[in-house]
């Protein structure tokens, strides 16, 4: 009943968007060029959301830890890359890799020091990660200041790319972000389904104790998952810092977006995270552009209404398993 209503409202919203986009036909005078750009914005934003959310969902799926310091690790990655590119003159790619390493390392330390011996007390772990995120965010404010700054993109991605339709061009870097998200997703899928490591991880997600009993060193898998998950948060931060900008407070807003993505899709499900990221990115952009003017300031609300509706209908998200 509620599910049907939610689907009907969603379809009506999409129809409203399409009507506004195509009502004046396909000519250059119409709204189609804007629609293309907004859709691309939504898709590339979804790519960014997916990169950071995939780390969160990996950590949750395997360790049952809701890492609320994920946003702080995200911002940390961004700031480290900024420092390396701007002050050390390093190439963007190397800086991105090092930033991933830094975020991953901090995440690993947090896991080993504070979370490992609280396994299973998920609320306590959530509180611990909140405390860690408070400390990290404040320390970053002290070291990197409060002025929003952006990382310079790599040279050959700095120029806009001509799309070949309606004389449109689009920032190459944002497209690269979408490609990167696809690569991350593909790598995840390959590792999950085609390698021994992936097999162990899948077994760990399904039943940690049984996996451990079969002779797998689960603690090592956990530590590796925490490192990779945190490194992905850092990579998200590098992309966000290049495509958008870095500022205090972004840790919280991106944590909230990543949580929305992961919860909408179902915690622990990678496909769910991809779908959640797409929904969030597109709803966010379409709502900002196509809501009637008098409601446009409510667009920020819509993503959270989306979350609340989905959770009310499916308490464990779209693809989440009840555990």
């Amino acid at each position, binding site marked *: 009943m509620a599910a049907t209503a939610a689907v009907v409202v969603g379809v009506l919203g999409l129809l409203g968007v399409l009507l506004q986009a195509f009502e004046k036909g396909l000519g250059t005078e119409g709204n189609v060029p804007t629609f293309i750009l907004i859709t691309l914005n939504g898709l590339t934003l979804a790519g960014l959301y997916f990169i950071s959310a995939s780390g969160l969902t990996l950590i949750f799926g395997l360790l049952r830890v809701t890492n609320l310091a994920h946003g702080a690790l995200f911002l940390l990655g961004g700031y480290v890359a900024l420092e390396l590119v701007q002050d050390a003159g390093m190439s963007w790619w190397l800086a991105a890799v090092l930033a991933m390493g830094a975020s991953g390392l901090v995440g690993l330390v947090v896991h080993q020091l504070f979370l490992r011996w609280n396994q299973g*007390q998920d609320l306590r772990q959530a509180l611990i990660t909140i405390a860690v995120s*408070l400390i990290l*965010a404040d320390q970053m404010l002290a070291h990197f200041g409060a002025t929003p700054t952006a990382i310079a993109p790599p040279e050959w991605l700095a120029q806009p790319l001509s799309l070949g339709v309606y004389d449109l061009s689009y920032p190459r870097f944002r497209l690269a972000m979408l490609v990167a998200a696809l690569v991350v997703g593909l790598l995840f899928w390959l590792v999950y389904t085609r390698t021994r490591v992936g097999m162990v991880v899948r077994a760990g997600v399904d039943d940690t104790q049984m996996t451990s009993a079969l002779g797998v060193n689960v603690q090592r898998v956990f530590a590796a998952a925490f490192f990779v998950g945190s490194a992905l948060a850092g990579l998200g931060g590098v992309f966000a810092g290049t495509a958008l900008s870095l500022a205090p407070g972004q840790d919280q807003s991106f944590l909230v977006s990543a949580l929305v993505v992961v919860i909408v899709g179902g915690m622990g499900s990678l496909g769910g995270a991809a779908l959640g990221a797409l929904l969030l990115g597109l709803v966010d952009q379409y709502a900002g552009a196509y809501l009637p003017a008098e409601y446009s300031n409510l667009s920020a*609300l819509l993503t959270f209404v989306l979350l609340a509706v989905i959770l*009310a209908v499916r308490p464990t998200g779209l693809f989440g398993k009840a555990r």
Partner: protein
Amino acid sequence: MTMDRMLTLGTRGALAVVLVVVALVPVLCTTFFTSQVGLTSLWLGIVAVSLTFLSGYGGMVSLAQTALFGVAGLIAARLSVESGWDPWAAALAGILAATAVGLLFGAVASGSQGIYFLIITLAFAQVTYFYFAAVPTFGAHEGINGVRPPAVLGDPVQDPARMYWFLLVVSVLAFLGLRHVSRTAFGLALQGVRDDPVRMAALGYNVRLHRILGFTLAAPVAGAAGVLSAWSNTRMSAGSISLAIAILVLTTAVIGGLNRLEGAWVGALIYTLCDTYLRGWTDRFTTWLGVVFLVIVLVSPGGVVGLLGSAGSWLRHRLAGGAPPPAAPSTPAPPVPVSSGGAR
């Protein structure tokens, strides 16, 4: 009279002394202390106790308490400043609105448990924040300034004594009321739902309804805190209910202790004292707050009150003389028996 009974009386006496000392604050301390530390820690304690009640007795750790706080505070402020309502009537309207919103939030969130509950209430907090930040009726980001408390309570800035006593009375009433609820049949069932929802459902209890009612009961407490905060500060804005504040209320409740209602005010007092006096001493106040939060969560899941309780029972055994303490007399209860595997 046994030793134990004397000690119980002693504890009660100590509590009475604490209450008297707290009541004498406006007489003994400066106006600055009374308004800055006193008023703030009292209203912060009231909103925190609504969270302590939910998590301690219902196993629901909610980040939406500041949202309900904001609904009541902003509606009351709006009605009294712009529509010229009597402050009491405006306060009542605000608290009723918060209760209705609490019923709605509770109805939606009650299906989720543990960490999902935390996240869905986080979404409610964000929705409410963005709503109030966007809508001009409530002053958008500016908020509503010049809120006048009822004349009986005096001017909260110049002479905060009467406002302080009023907040103290409300705090005591909120404490006694929530404690009473926790001892009724409903309160006991709620604790059963917290500990083992599946078994309670098997026994014929409507688990979801108990959660919804528990959440709705805590809403007017959070709402009252919102109105009192608007009165104490003479203003309220969307910034008063941002995510940072929601996390602050959670921090306060955790520092005080999620297992006992009085922990809310203890945590609020500790936070407010640090906020008032440590900020001048260090630039990195938030870092220290985070460190304290981290240490408390790691060392004492029962918070400061839990630590005091352990110390108290240790002392009790010392005074009672020789009788060896039972194996683990003061093991603090696990913070909140919640896991996402609750409904296995």
